[in-house]
């Protein structure tokens, strides 16, 4: 079996992740931050260590600014709904995932915001000239930006874009779903206000984990309120971090796994992971580009990119290709629109979508060769 759906959920996980989950389940089991017995303390320590490891990975000096959520979609919703003000003019790009577009379109539909979408090139890069033009025309209050595309694998020139937006005093939310864990990220230098991440993709943790990093002084309104284990005498939500945003018992078993995954990444380093994954992507890109009738999307292999490669092949539908790969070669890929219809409109593959190959850190060169061969065979059997 060859699993190439790591952009949806990474698999397999480092063995340390499974060991940490089993350790929590068999020897701790209790609630963090609630009772004060020894197992509750152990659970509290475990959550604290996960936060510390996340802070280390993202170069954040105070781990209380790492807020855990169930995934990046929840973090993005928290950041967007918690920071938007009625009447705001909001900027986003034509490469966003539905986790960004749907909350923004909802706010627009409700008449609460005006939405401006910056177009992107067919390689999936936002048009900086267009962005500058819009910034001259209007004053914006909020921007929500992708850091890396789940369709094309392009990495956005965020540092440059954020500096343009910050010059105008715009609050910036970044969707790091595909980049967290996949490339080095320094949130001390990348001056976004909120950086959202998920645990189950390149951070190599379990599903049901994710979160956001708040820059100092940024306090969105919480999405939910309730028990935090702190200030129990108060009928109002405590307004300190991280409790302000973490009502209800946390996903401690998931965070046990995420903490171990973050430790693995910190030890391996994100730059080593990025380097290895780029090699796999380069191998795939080169092999696939030699296949007649196959069309590749996104930045070429020599660009700094994520290991996400989208393609179409002759008149075959993406679904037919994926079915063939799964049934005859045990190769698992994702097809269709990848929850990002706008991105597919941008690269010209809407509504049919593409086949997406997303290798991960644990895939081998040999597996890439097997995949290229299987797709090559399919191309021969299905000429244009």
């Amino acid at each position, binding site marked *: 079996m060859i699993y190439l759906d790591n952009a949806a959920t990474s698999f397999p996980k480092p063995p340390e992740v499974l060991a940490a989950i089993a350790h929590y389940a068999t020897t701790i089991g209790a609630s963090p931050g609630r009772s004060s017995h020894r197992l509750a*303390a152990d659970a509290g320590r475990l959550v604290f260590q996960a936060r510390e490891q996340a802070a280390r990975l993202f170069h954040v000096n105070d*781990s*209380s600014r790492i807020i855990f959520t169930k995934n990046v979609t929840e973090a993005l919703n928290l950041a967007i709904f918690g920071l938007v003000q009625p009447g705001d003019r909001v900027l986003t790009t034509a490469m966003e995932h539905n986790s960004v577009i749907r909350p923004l379109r909802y706010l627009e539909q409700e008449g609460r915001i005006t939405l401006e979408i910056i177009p992107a090139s067919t390689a999936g890069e936002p048009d900086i000239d267009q962005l500058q033009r819009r910034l001259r025309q209007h004053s914006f209050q909020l921007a929500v930006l992708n850091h890396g595309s789940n369709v094309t694998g392009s990495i956005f020139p965020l540092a440059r874009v954020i500096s343009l937006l910050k010059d105008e005093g715009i609050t910036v939310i970044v969707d790091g779903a595909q980049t967290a864990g996949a490339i080095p990220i320094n949130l001390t230098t990348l001056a976004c206000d909120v950086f959202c991440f998920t645990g189950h993709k390149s951070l190599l943790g379990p599903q049901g984990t994710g979160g956001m990093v708040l820059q100092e002084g940024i306090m969105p309104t919480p999405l939910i309120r309730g028990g*935090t284990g*702190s200030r*129990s005498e108060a009928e109002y939500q405590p307004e300190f*971090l991280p*409790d302000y945003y973490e009502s209800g018992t946390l996903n401690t078993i998931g965070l046990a796994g995420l903490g171990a995954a973050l430790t693995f990444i910190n030890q391996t380093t994100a730059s080593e992971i990025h380097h290895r994954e780029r090699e796999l992507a380069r191998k795939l890109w080169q092999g696939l580009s030699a296949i007649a009738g196959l069309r590749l999307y996104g930045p070429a292999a020599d660009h700094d990119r994520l290991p996400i490669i989208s393609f179409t092949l002759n008149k075959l539908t993406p679904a037919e290709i994926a079915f063939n790969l799964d049934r005859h070669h045990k190769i698992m890929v994702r097809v269709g629109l990848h929850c990002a219809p706008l991105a597919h409109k941008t690269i010209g593959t809407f509504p049919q979508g593409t086949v997406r190959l997303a290798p991960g850190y644990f895939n081998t060169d040999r597996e890439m060769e097997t995949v290229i061969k299987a797709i090559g065979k399919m191309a021969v059997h299905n000429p244009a």
Partner: protein
Amino acid sequence: MNLHTYLLFNSIHYVMKAEELLKEAGMTIDLVPVPREISSDCGMCIAFSEQDLQKVISLVSGQGFPGEIQIYRRMARHEYQRIENERNKLTEQQ
């Protein structure tokens, strides 16, 4: 050693942070429930010996702990007294 002085934070996050910091400094501390007389909070706090008071204050100062740090000493059963400390005066001045 009698650990009858208590260091309190608003969030369990900072209790864990302080526990790690103080343990790494080789201090004898214990995690205990917050005494009911001090706060109705359901959380934990750090118990230490009053002879380590200055060392504890200096260790948790300037380490990114938020705002006010609360320290109490146990006077008698069910009786606790707040200990004012330099760190809080510094915070108030900011």
